[in-house]
């Protein structure tokens, strides 16, 4: 009897260990997601079908990829000639209004990541990301190494870096030329962190990051007004510094409140030499009601200070070298309210549906809807 009990206990322990061990590895899957993003006031609308897949090659390699096509339409606010005041062209003879500027474009993006596991089960992630828009090309290579510091795999440290090279088609908003030119920028992102299992039902992750941007960092679609109400008043493309150094920390904590409910908290602090500081607090609760349904609720809060060269007024800028009226560089805060439901049809097929409402103090409101199907094999 005792032997039988020991055998059962041993089997149970082995099974749980296998479950826990397997969870460290990705399952093979193919997933399709349809993502819809819509802003208020007839502004930006994005439809983004996404295809992603992950495949294990033995126990030492996993290859993962995704492909997305964003159809972006609508309008984005910027300073433009105010047709109501008689200036219907860019002749700088009339008044200006901060209003929606229509556009229509697409973005095609894909990424590929290879995970390599070594004999000690340390992992190396290498990846490439490519993104194509009509006026913006981005190419990124990245690598990250994760090392377990103990035999029980309760603690790991990771360090990674990425390099992005971008090509941007910029527009000279000056009336006389209106010409476009090709600009470039690059970005180096270095990140290091620590992941720690705190108990059988909670763990945390802390990461620090440094991002160095260099080159043409101006938004080619954003405009400013210089020397307003003078004989020299002009509507021009904004001008941002060609360097930006940012760093911050990101702290994550996840715990099981009971057998079926988990709580995840995330705090990020960010600061850069454009004088932008931001704080992000993200909370999510998941409830696995039964083997088929899982519900999620979340609340995200974000706040940032404005860039030192930002001003939203049309009569502010004169001869300042750096100037922007892009409200994304302004002082604002934002809330995101999240809800989701997952339905598992069987061990292979599951569906997901999600809705989010995003609200900025700038007046921007947006909804994000996601729906998808995942097939595991």
């Amino acid at each position, binding site marked *: 009897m005792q032997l039988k009990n020991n055998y059962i206990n041993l089997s149970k322990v082995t099974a749980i260990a296998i479950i826990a061990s397997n969870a460290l590895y990705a399952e093979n899957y193919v997933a399709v997601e349809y993502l819809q993003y819509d802003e208020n006031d007839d502004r930006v609308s994005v439809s983004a079908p996404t295809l992603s897949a992950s495949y294990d090659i033995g126990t030492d390699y996993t290859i993962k990829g995704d492909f997305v096509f964003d159809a972006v339409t609508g309008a984005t606010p910027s300073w433009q000639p105010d047709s109501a005041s008689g200036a219907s062209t860019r002749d700088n003879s009339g008044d200006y209004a901060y209003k929606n500027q229509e556009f229509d474009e697409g973005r095609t993006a894909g990424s590929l990541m290879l995970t390599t596991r070594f004999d000690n089960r340390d992992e190396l992630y290498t990846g490439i990301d490519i993104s194509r828009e009509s006026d913006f090309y981005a190419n990124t290579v990245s690598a990250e190494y994760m090392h377990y510091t*103990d035999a029980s795999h309760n603690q790991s440290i990771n360090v990674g870096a990425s390099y992005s090279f971008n090509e941007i088609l910029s527009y000279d908003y000056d009336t006389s030329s209106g010409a476009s030119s090709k600009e470039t920028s690059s970005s180096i*992102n270095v990140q290091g962190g620590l992941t720690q299992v*705190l108990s*059988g039902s909670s763990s945390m992750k802390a990461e620090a990051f440094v991002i160095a941007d260099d080159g043409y960092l101006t938004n080619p679609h954003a405009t400013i007004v210089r020397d307003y109400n003078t004989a020299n008043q002009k509507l021009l493309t904004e001008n941002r510094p060609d360097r930006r150094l940012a760093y911050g920390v990101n702290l994550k904590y996840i715990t099981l409140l009971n057998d079926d409910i988990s709580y995840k908290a995330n705090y990020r602090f960010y600061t850069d030499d454009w004088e932008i500081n931001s704080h992000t607090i993200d909370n*999510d609760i998941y409830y696995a009601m039964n083997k088929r349904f899982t519900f999620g609720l979340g609340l995200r809060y974000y706040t940032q200070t404005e860039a030192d060269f930002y001003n939203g007024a049309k009569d502010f800028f004169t001869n300042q070298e750096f100037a922007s009226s892009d409200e994304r560089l302004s002082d604002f805060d934002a809330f995101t309210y999240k809800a989701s439901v997952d339905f598992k049809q069987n061990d292979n097929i599951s569906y997901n549906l999600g809705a989010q409402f995003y609200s*900025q103090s700038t007046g921007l409101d947006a909804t994000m809807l996601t729906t998808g199907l995942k097939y595991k094999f």
Partner: protein
Amino acid sequence: MQITTIALVAFLLMGCSMIEEVKPWEKENLAKPIMQFEGLHPEVTKFESHVYFSKEASRGGSGVAGGGCGCN
């Protein structure tokens, strides 16, 4: 900021050294899908990150890969 970061990392490392070891067979709960840092659907998380990247002035801390303009 650098001193704060170093102090935070030191604090975390000191704190972690006092945590009781969790054995592999005690990690069943940690393996549940609802206990993953990246959420239930990494593809959706990636889309959300791109939205925030496009509409806010800060980024970072969610992996080293990425790309795109998000100018509009």
